[in-house]
């Protein structure tokens, strides 16, 4: 997929899916991301946590240009993320995203939601796109809902469709932006189960979530953000059992305390 003239491939970056160097971002006067350095290898599963307003969502939204960073370098899948529309399009093809509020297209059926991007962006023939869509809908365990519309599904089902829709583009990297925050407790499990399966299949994932059980079970690395900075990152066992900074300790005591 990657055309050599657009890709800024570096020798040591072969295994790197994401690399962020000295990234800064402002919303008006507000400095929302402060000097972020992060690199994610292929197959890594990262959980990003932190208090609200700490820039977690903004961080992952910068990776597919839903937000524009003003300073620093980001490259995804070896493609430099800059103002070049071609590069942005190419990165978006390789990066799937799942949103807090699902963002399914309500005027299209579940199947059409999943087929849309392969057909229009990847130029996949219709029949093949349908096959791919059904494959991934089966994988998230709702093939029988394919002909329904998003409004007819429960929140958990909608979120699984959203995951299937992202997977239909067969991305290299999946971004999850608080995928379970808008769900009823009983539906959180079905979505998390789907995500665990995805992780077990070796998908590279960056997941903003407050589900610490999920983080413990799935993540290779947990990143803690506060006030726009990466305050701490560690393997989940060490992160939860032996947090280093005071801010992390405070945060963990608050979310694990009840």
């Amino acid at each position, binding site marked *: 997929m990657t055309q050599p003239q657009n890709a800024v491939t570096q020798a040591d970056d072969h295994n790197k899916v994401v690399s962020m160097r000295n990234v800064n971002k402002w919303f008006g006067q507000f400095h929302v991301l402060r000097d972020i350095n992060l690199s994610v290898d292929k197959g890594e599963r990262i959980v990003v946590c932190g208090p609200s307003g700490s820039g977690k969502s903004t961080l992952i939204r910068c990776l597919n240009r839903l937000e524009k960073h003003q300073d620093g370098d980001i490259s995804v899948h070896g493609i430099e993320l800059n103002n070049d529309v071609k590069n942005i399009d190419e990165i*978006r093809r390789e990066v*799937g995203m799942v949103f807090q509020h699902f*963002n399914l297209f309500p*005027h299209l059926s579940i199947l059409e939601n999943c087929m*849309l991007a392969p057909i229009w*962006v990847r130029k996949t023939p219709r029949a093949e796109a349908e096959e791919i869509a059904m494959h991934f809908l089966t994988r998230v365990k709702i093939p029988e809902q394919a002909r329904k519309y998003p409004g007819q599904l429960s929140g958990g089902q909608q979120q699984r469709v959203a995951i299937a829709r992202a997977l239909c583009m067969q991305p290299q990297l999946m971004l999850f932006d608080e995928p379970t925050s808008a769900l009823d407790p009983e539906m959180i499990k079905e979505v998390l189960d789907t995500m665990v399966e995805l992780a077990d299949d070796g998908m590279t994932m960056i997941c903003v979530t407050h589900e610490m059980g999920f983080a413990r079970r799935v993540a290779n690395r947990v990143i803690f953000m506060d006030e726009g900075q990466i305050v701490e990152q560690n393997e989940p066992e060490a992160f939860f059992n032996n947090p280093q900074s005071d801010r992390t300790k405070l945060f963990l005591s608050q979310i694990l305390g009840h």
Partner: protein
Amino acid sequence: MVRKLPGTATKKIKAKKPIPSAVDAQAGYVRSEDAPLLPPPPSEVGVTGWLYKNIFASMSDFSSISAALKSAFIAVLTLLILYFLATQTIGLLDFAIFSAVWSDPEGLKRQACWTVEQGGALPAGWHAACWPFIQAKAKFIFYGAYPTDDLWRVNMTYAIGVFLLAWVLIERLPYRKMVGALLLTVYPVMAIVLLTGGAFTISTGTIGGATILGLALISIGRLGKAGYITGALGDLSLVAGVCGWVVIAFAVVLAIFSIDFDLEAIDTRDWGGLLITLVVAITGIVASLPLGILLALGRRSEMPVARFLSTVFIEFWRGVPLITVLFMASVMLPLFMPEGVNFDMLLRALIGVTLFSAAYMAEVVRGGLQAIDKGQYEGADAVGLSYWQSMRLIILPQALTHVIPGIVNTFIGLFKDTALVSIVGIFDLLGAAQSTLADAAWSTPVQGLTGYLVVATIFFIFCFGMSRYSMYMEQKLNRSHKI
């Protein structure tokens, strides 16, 4: 809670505050078997239910004096309204049908619709429609001064248009998209040739030049696609390629217009009546929707120039009355034109009406765009759709569905506004009907009423049809809220 743990729940309630004994006895009560499923009361279903809900619900309460007074008042009001409606309907039917003069076998003209006092044969006090007058003037009301021998051309245009439109609207038929494309591309060209006669004087140089320009642009596009032109110029070359096809299409249309089909040329000044109304309204409707959509997108664009130009355009056209626009088109425009260049008056009016309603359409569409959640844009971006793809596939289908009532409102307004073209000397339906009233041979007291009744009925049929179709579309497209 109460059902699951009756004991504890009762205790809790008791602890908080004392409850009257009747409730207290029930608080710990748990159903041991399911309550029976009962049919709804008769006031909810069937004919009685409908009558009750829609008519008697507000006037059947006599439980107190004030409620009884209210019920009586509403009953009296209902009867008054019914009486009013009945007399009006009967009056209209009597005027238009029962007492109307339907034929004039002896060719008496106005005398056929005269009462005894006026010198005719009808009884004194007669007051009803004079249909022979409409029969005599029908050709003018529907076609204006269009030559009688060539009316088949207008009728054929209508017939083909109705046929294609019906094909597109009936959902069971195959190839609807293709027929729709035909309706928007081939049909207008054919209609122009049929109605005007075609054979315009267009020099072969113009057609040849356009063809060469188009081919050149297409080749540039091909080069860009093949990768010979890169960078910003590469994108431009792709645009050039698309423009090339447009130019070629334009050349083809010009070529068709220059062909002599051996049809008599009929100046648009001879067109009139319903023909003008339909030409202006349909052109306006078909052209103003896409233009309005583009303007709305432009006004919400992140590009300052596009946003500025769209805003200026919209505000200018919305700020000027249509009558002023038409006067400008008919009086001012020729002053700016070089000597000898004569721009067809109907064409000028068409452009004026189209741009005018496009500005309104743009604001309606913008309202729809604003109702779309930001998440939809982000969802479309995240799966990698381009701007135009996400607009066409995700945003506009939803936005336009939201504003179908507003869009059809603008269409209906446009249809009725076509009557204004009569002030610049174009005889639309109303203008044509009005001009027939000047014919002294049919001068009767009911001449005007009959003429206006016909005009009003025709306008109503078209506008009501649009309104009903829009309601059908709304229901059909409303699947996003289906739960």
